[in-house]
């Protein structure tokens, strides 16, 4: 997907709130409001939705806090009023309707890795070489296009972010 998001680097926000030096991870939480979000009455996932990033990922200039797209304020279904966009990771890392951001020393739990630890990890970096257990992730179709194209490592942002993961086995970064 190629989306013209409107937002600002999460790093700017983090620097402004001055977390402790011991903070190694950032945890995010979505609004829990079954009145507005009726599927939260079901048990298809553990609610509220939570996500997390390593501190260096969170302060990377490509990581955005987003309040709009296509020149307009975020519609509810896209995660109003404020959501995360991490362009080199799979979409589920982009937590929507954020109501809480915390700084932690330990890696926080994330909703999809609670739901299916075999299928979803903490990092969720786009990696065409690692198939999801149930489907290939080697190709993608961009919205508005008919032909599939090869998915690029780190969604094409390898030059900018690959150095965050030196020394880690890319196979564990799903």
């Amino acid at each position, binding site marked *: 997907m190629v989306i013209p998001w409107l937002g600002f680097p999460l790093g700017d926000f983090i620097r402004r709130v001055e977390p402790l030096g011991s903070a190694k991870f950032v945890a995010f939480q979505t609004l829990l409001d079954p009145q507005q979000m009726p599927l939260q009455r*079901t048990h298809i996932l553990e609610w509220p939705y939570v996500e997390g990033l390593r501190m260096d990922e969170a302060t990377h200039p490509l990581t955005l806090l987003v309040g709009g797209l296509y020149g307009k304020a975020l519609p509810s279904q896209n995660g109003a009023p404020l959501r995360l966009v991490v362009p080199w990771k799979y979409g589920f890392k982009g937590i929507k309707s954020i109501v809480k951001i915390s700084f932690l020393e330990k890696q926080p739990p994330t909703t999809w890795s609670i*739901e299916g630890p075999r299928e979803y990890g903490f990092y969720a970096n786009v990696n065409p070489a690692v198939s999801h257990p*149930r489907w*290939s992730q080697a190709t993608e179709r961009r919205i508005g296009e008919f032909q599939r194209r090869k998915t690029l490592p780190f969604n094409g942002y390898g030059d900018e972010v690959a150095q965050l993961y030196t020394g880690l086995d890319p196979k564990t970064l799903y």
Partner: protein
Amino acid sequence: MAPRRPPLPWLKPGLFAGGLIPVAVLVWRAAHRTLGADAIAIGLNQLGYLALVFLVASLTCTPLKTLTGWTWPVRIRRMLGLFAFFYASLHLLTYVGIDQQLDWPVLWGDVTQRKFMIVGFLAFCCLVPLAWTSTDAAVRRLGFQRWKALHRLVYVAGVLAVVHFAWRVKSDLRVPLTWAAILGVLFLIRIADAIRTRRRKRARQPVAARSVDLGPAG
């Protein structure tokens, strides 16, 4: 006294026309680009869902006759089954031709490595011989007993289709489990009916033959 069978002359033409409406709507929406942002995925999912609906509908005919005594469901069973095959074929062709665009290495990986793809493909494979032998001539050629035995494959296809659906979803299993429950109820009705029929047959046998057949426990 057997109830007089109503002719229902509109039954088969009505089902034939009705069964084609979903594909007409899909083609119309695709042509007018109103299937949504991810149109191929929507079309693919709808075709697969329609195949399941028709497959389960065809499996409902006999239990419905068992429960109600109506005979009309059995008259449309073949057409329902053929619609299931029709939509399953479109589902498969859409995946192979439009979604994956004949990327044979990926498709080979699908049918050799990915469980949910394998069961979906096997479900389709079960339907092929059933569609092939769906004519009256095929029943005569095979003989009714062999034809009937072959067509028991439809139960396997039904189970595989529901498993394919359940293994495909990411977390929300409510819809696939509903179809599994429907399939389960239909199977229970068949089993209960089979047991009842066997008991009745047994009861009709003469006492001497029964004791010989069943031994001391009988």
